[in-house]
């Protein structure tokens, strides 16, 4: 069940009414939200609700174990065992095929004949997201960041809550669980903010991301060698913009829906294309994943000790490499992660050694160079992210390197969309909040008409039918 569909509209309307009717009976409300979340997940494949329940039970037991024992070594062993179990499940569903294919290729290259067990494994939608949420819970309990004992119901709901279940944002246990212990509330500002997020998310996904994808990105990436230089450059920028629109649209709608049900999720994107360094871009892009990687992977790599510069560089690189692998089981994602890792290290090293040079530059010029570097590393690396295999990516770069005149797919409409989508990243960060503040005092009928018009505009301009969100596959 996709967000921008008639079916989801009906589903949400029912959930909204019943969840608020049950507001004063906390357990009933949570049971209802849990049941609706499992119903939502079952719309993709009901069999995987068992996996979702297994993942939740595993992490719940891990939390119980951590609360029961005091000895540091025992607690560490429990935490590591539960994290490892989470990663084994994730690895099996997500990376088994990739591992077997790569091993087969390696054996063939060495001239060895081996029949390796091939399994057709369906990737459960959202597995990376709910696995990471489970890991965040266990590690937070281990680190003492979750003080209260967590009930089975709360933990199951935390891991399966439908707005964020299949494509994030990755919600932190320490942030979400306390919200389950108190009665939800809804004020006029949150209502207006939720509505604005839903309308903006629908428009970004069903209109802008859709047309950029179908009119420019998809045809050019299908066979990069047969396209003109301008089309290739346009599609390179367009794809980065498309991923941003698609994923931030999902996050906006998820945050908006959660807000309308009385839950607060943190912002997942904060105008990343306005960043004046790659490090800043990563602080503003998929913030829930970036902070997850920082807090649970980078911190684990670094340990408690003070690290040398070289170790910092190694840890940054490894974090991005593993971040690439998280996105998908393919060499293209690993290369994408490696490019970002190397570029982040290069940027950090440059900042360390170029003090005098940077002081000589005016702040505006420095920001411009930083923006150009960050934006182009991101959009060029995105070629690997989008390409189905390394061959297509190599074709793309080879075609970019030789000039071919003309323009077929980069139309004025597409070019305007790309420029506008990047330009809005230079607006103030609280632009949507300001819109919501202006809407809040409007009469009820006017608010309803505006909300209806917003959805109607997406419906009227957008195509019939909606493509799945890009991040469902992760």
């Amino acid at each position, binding site marked *: 069940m996709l967000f921008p569909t*008639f079916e989801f509209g009906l589903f949400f309307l029912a959930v909204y009414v019943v969840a608020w009717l049950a507001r004063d009976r906390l357990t009933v409300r949570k049971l209802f939200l849990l049941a609706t979340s499992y119903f939502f997940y079952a719309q993709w494949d009901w069999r995987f609700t068992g996996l979702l329940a297994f993942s939740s039970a595993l992490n719940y037991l891990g939390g119980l174990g951590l609360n029961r024992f005091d000895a540091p070594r025992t607690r560490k062993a429990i935490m590591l065992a539960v994290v490892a179990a989470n990663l084994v499940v994730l690895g099996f569903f997500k990376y088994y095929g990739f591992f077997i294919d790569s091993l087969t290729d390696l054996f063939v290259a060495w001239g060895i004949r081996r029949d390796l067990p091939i399994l057709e494994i369906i990737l459960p939608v959202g597995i990376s997201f709910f696995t990471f949420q489970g890991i965040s819970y266990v590690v937070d309990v281990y680190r003492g960041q979750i003080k209260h004992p967590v009930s089975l119901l709360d933990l199951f709901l935390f891991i399966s809550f439908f707005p964020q279940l299949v494509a994030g944002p990755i919600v932190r246990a320490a942030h979400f669980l306390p919200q389950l212990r108190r009665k939800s509330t809804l004020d006029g500002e*949150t209502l207006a903010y939720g509505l604005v997020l839903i309308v903006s998310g629908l428009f970004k996904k069903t209109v802008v991301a859709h047309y950029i994808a179908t009119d420019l990105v998809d045809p050019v990436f299908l066979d990069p060698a047969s396209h003109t230089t301008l089309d290739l450059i346009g599609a390179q920028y367009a794809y980065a913009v498309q991923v941003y629109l698609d994923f931030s649209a999902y996050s906006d709608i998820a945050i908006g829906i959660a807000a309308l049900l009385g839950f607060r999720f943190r912002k997942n994107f904060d105008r990343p294309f306005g960043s004046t360094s790659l490090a800043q871009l990563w602080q503003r892009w998929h913030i829930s994943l970036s902070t997850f990687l920082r807090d649970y992977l980078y911190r684990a790599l670094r340990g408690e000790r003070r690290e040398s510069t070289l170790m910092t560089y190694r840890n940054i690189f490894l974090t991005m490499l593993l971040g690439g692998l998280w996105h998908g089981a393919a060499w293209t994602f690993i290369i994408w992660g490696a490019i970002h890792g190397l570029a982040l290290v290069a940027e950090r090293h440059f900042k360390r050694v170029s003090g005098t040079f940077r002081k000589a530059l005016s702040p505006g010029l420095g920001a411009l160079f930083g923006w150009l570097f960050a934006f182009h590393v991101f959009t060029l690396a995105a070629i690997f992210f989008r390409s189905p295999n390394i061959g297509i990516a190599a074709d793309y770069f080879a075609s970019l390197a030789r000039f071919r005149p003309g323009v077929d797919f980069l139309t004025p409409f597409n070019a305007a969309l790309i420029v506008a989508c990047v330009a809005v990243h230079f607006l103030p960060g609280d632009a949507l909040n300001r819109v919501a503040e202006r809407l809040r005092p409007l009469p009820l009928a006017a608010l*309803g008409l505006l909300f209806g018009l917003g959805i109607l505009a997406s*419906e009227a301009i957008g195509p019939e039918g909606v493509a799945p969100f890009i991040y469902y596959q992760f």
Partner: protein
Amino acid sequence: MRDTTEDRSYVATVRRGLIVFLIAAAMLAVFNSARLRSAVRDWPPSAVTDRIVLAADRWHGWMEAIGAAALVPAIHDGFERVRRLRWDG
């Protein structure tokens, strides 16, 4: 006392939200009846679905008759003209 005031305030906001959704749903039903019809046609076949499809068909017929169903295609056509623009005109 404070709790009661807070309760009254959240109830009013929730009710406000519900009315907003209903107004939006009514607007979509009036101006986008074709999409409503195609959505229910995709539902799994059953006696209930058949009735809903019939009702959606009839509703769309009424919206066509009063001209409301023409708005979305008109907007879409206007948008398509912009989308099809090329650098050479």
